[in-house]
Every structure is written in C-alpha cells, then in structure tokens.
C-alpha cells in the first residue's frame, strides 16, 4: 500500500461534495467516479460564485486557496451543511 499525496483535484472533489456542489459519492473514499464535464464545471462555477471569485469553472490557484481556508461546516441531519440549501 502506497500512501501518496492527494491530488488537488481530489481535494476539490471532496470539498465540493462536502458542501453540496457535487454528489456525495464524490467523497466516498472507496471509489472513484467520472462526471460529465458540465456537472464538474457547474460545481466549480457555483462555488466560485458563492465565494465571490471570478467565475471561470477552472480550479485555479485562487479557488483552491479559498477551499483550503477554515470555514463553517455546520452539520445538518444528512451530514455537512450545504452552501446550496434552498429556501422554502
């Protein structure tokens, strides 16, 4: 078993699924999945929009930096709170 560094992409996937931008399966450590490109791009764009960054859909340095900052991780009944919760 080799334990190497986790790629930037994987870190972003875990973060984006943790906060509701990608399906929860994206943070399942037992498997890897493949998304269609529009789902991936929209997730990154939605996060960038929420965070007030330039909305590029690219995992640029600024986006990754923001994902690495400590933030509120309010838990709700299904796990972590989501940035995308809709208002009733």
């Amino acid at each position, binding site marked *: *078993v*080799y*334990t*190497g*560094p*986790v*790629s*930037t*992409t*994987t870190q972003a*996937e875990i973060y984006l699924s943790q906060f509701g931008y990608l*399906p*929860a*399966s994206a943070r*399942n450590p*037992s*498997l*890897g*999945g*493949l*998304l*269609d*490109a*529009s*789902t*991936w*791009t929209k997730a990154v764009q939605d996060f960038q929009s929420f965070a007030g960054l330039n909305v590029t859909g690219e*995992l640029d340095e600024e986006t990754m930096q923001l994902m690495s900052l400590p933030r509120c991780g309010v838990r709700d009944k299904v796990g972590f709170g989501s940035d995308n919760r809709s208002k009733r």
Partner: protein
Amino acid sequence: YALQGSRWRVKGLTYKISKYPKRLKRADVDAEILRAFSVWSEFTDLTFTPKTSGPVHIEIKFVESEHGDGDAFDGMGGTLAHAFFPVFGGDAHFDDAELWTIGSPRGTNLFQVAAHEFGHSLGLSHSDVRSALMAPFYRGFEPVFKLDSDDVLAIQALYGKRSTQGGNGLNPTSGGAYPKTTQKPIFSPPKTPRDDQLCRDPKIDALFNSADGETYAFKGNKYYRLTENSVADGYPKSISDGWPGLPGDIDAAFTYKNGKTYFFKGTKYWRFNGRSVDGDYPKEISEGFTGVPDHLDAAMVWGGNGKIYFFKGSKFWRFDPLKRPPVKSSYPKPISNWEGLPNSLDAALQYTNGYTYFFKGDKYYRFNDRTFAVDYADPPFPRPSGHWWFGCK
C-alpha cells in the same frame, strides 16, 4: 497523477461483465471493455482475461439508480460511472441511464469511460492534469484516443513498465496497438521515409499546435503539417497561401487557450483566428506583449500554468496576460534554469502528450515538466528531429 493507495498483488487479472447495458450488443460491449483494459496493459505487464462465470478480480455491471453499494446513480448526466479501488474490490459500475455509444460523437463513449474507471479499479485516483484520462470528468468523444503521459507514469508507478516494450521512445504512448481499435498508435515508423528539403536541413523557424489540434512546422516561406510520425502528404505549402497576410521566416508562434494563433517576426506580431488574420495586424510586440523582447527565438504556452514563455538567446520571459505587468520584474531569467536546454533555441512546443519539446538546429530535446529537466532516455536527447519528427530517412 495521484495514486489511491492500494494496488493488485498480481498482474494477471480477470474480469466479467455480470450485467450488460440495455442498448448495446453484447459482443460490441465485450470488445470495447477489452479495448479499455488494453489501454493499461499496453504500458505494463498487466493482463486482463475475460470470464463468464466464477469469481473474478473485477466485476463490471451496467445498472441504474440505487444498485446495492450505497452510491446510487443519478440518471442521465452527472455521475456516469464509478469503480472501487483495489483494496475495496475493484468492481466497476456504469450508470445505464446514460446513452452508451461506441465510436460515435453522440451519447457517452463507453470505451473512454471504461478506460477511466478501470484506472480506478487498478488504483489510480483523479489526476490534476486536464488532458489525462484520469481527470475527473468526461470531455466528450475523442475519435483518436491517446493515453496521456501522466496516466502512463501513474500506472507504471504501480505496476512497473512493460517488459517487452514496443515503440520508438519519442512518446510514452508509443507501443503496441489496442485490439480492435479505431485509433492508431502514434509515432510508429512512417511507411515511406521522406527525403526532401526539410530532411536535408531540418532546422525550423517555428512549431505550434493549431486550435483544431494539428501541429505545424514553419521553415522559410513554407509550412508543413506534421502527422504522428512524419509530414502529411501534399506538404510543404506556401505560408502566404495557408495564412494569407503572414510573411515567411517567422521567429516564433503559439496558439493560446483562446484558440487564437500568434506569430512573431522581428519587432511585429500577427494574431490569426484559424487561417484568417484577426483584425488590424501586424502590431508591435512592444504594444501587445509588453516586457517581451523583439526578434524572438521561440515561444510556447505551457499547459501546466497556461502562461506564455518566450525565449531569446540565453534568456526566457514568462508572460501572463491576466497580470499587470504581464512580465514580472524578475524576468528575464537564464534558460539554464531549464536543466539540459541549450541557449538560442529555434522552436518550442508543448505537445499533446504533455511533454515540452525544444528544437535547435537539426536536433530536439524532450523536456519533462515533472522533473523539470531534459529527459534521460535511450537514445539520449538531443535527438535528430528529421528522423523522429519529420519522417526522414
């Protein structure tokens, strides 16, 4: 690339398709799945044997929504497929709500997605390299599939290199052909070695990839379209015919991520959109590329950061169009920072395999962005570009 942390102890692996997709013929699926495994066995000593019953290493099934592993599929789009890493069993599941297709730009290409999923089954995580098969999203149908060098390095980190190696060493994706393939192995020897002006003097002025994926070499008043291993039939052609308004003896060229191609000569530059000049050109380099010198040797866009690198004499400049100033005050820097590269280059190109190639005189250097040095290889670099790039005798 990134490794998940587990791998198979054996290299002879078995698989079976326990549930086929509803819209494709079984025989076609069998062939595509075999072809997808071959992507990985081409570069390693891994073998994949299909079975129809009994226990196997990798079980494959096409299923919809909730299918027993707790990670339900989500209908068309979204998640296309997922696969378990070796320590979790290696099985691969495909969302049968997708329109799986073979060799068609419609729907979702089964071969490409399967090859990606089997990467997970073998222990690979998602890569940061966008052009890699192991990037986390499906980029659409690619009629000519090429495994990225990043993927090759990844799989070989787990399972070693193939002990019976084919190919000519220019590109890690060279080697045997995939079975029943519609794609061709790249850099196989040309059928008819060429012997023309370019072969007699392989020094070139500029080399670049066009927005539509072709690679062109410019020399004097002529240009050549390069194939995987040679020059396309019907070339050279006149630059003035191919790119109306552009002079000969170009110094440098590159295509930026906006799809526009920039040509440099002396103190001026031209911007082209495909084969048409894109406005009022030429313009002064000092006007459009502040901080970049005139009379360049070479230029290229480096995929690692999307920035533009210019080379002249013993120095290089890094240009970032999004920054002010676009060239930092710490530039120029010495080319000797690029370990193994000579000064006074002729051309530079980041090729579709992820390597960066530099040309000087009749030779070229393959630069490995991962080690940030000219690659050690047998035969060593620099190598004669006539033989390896232009299909010369």
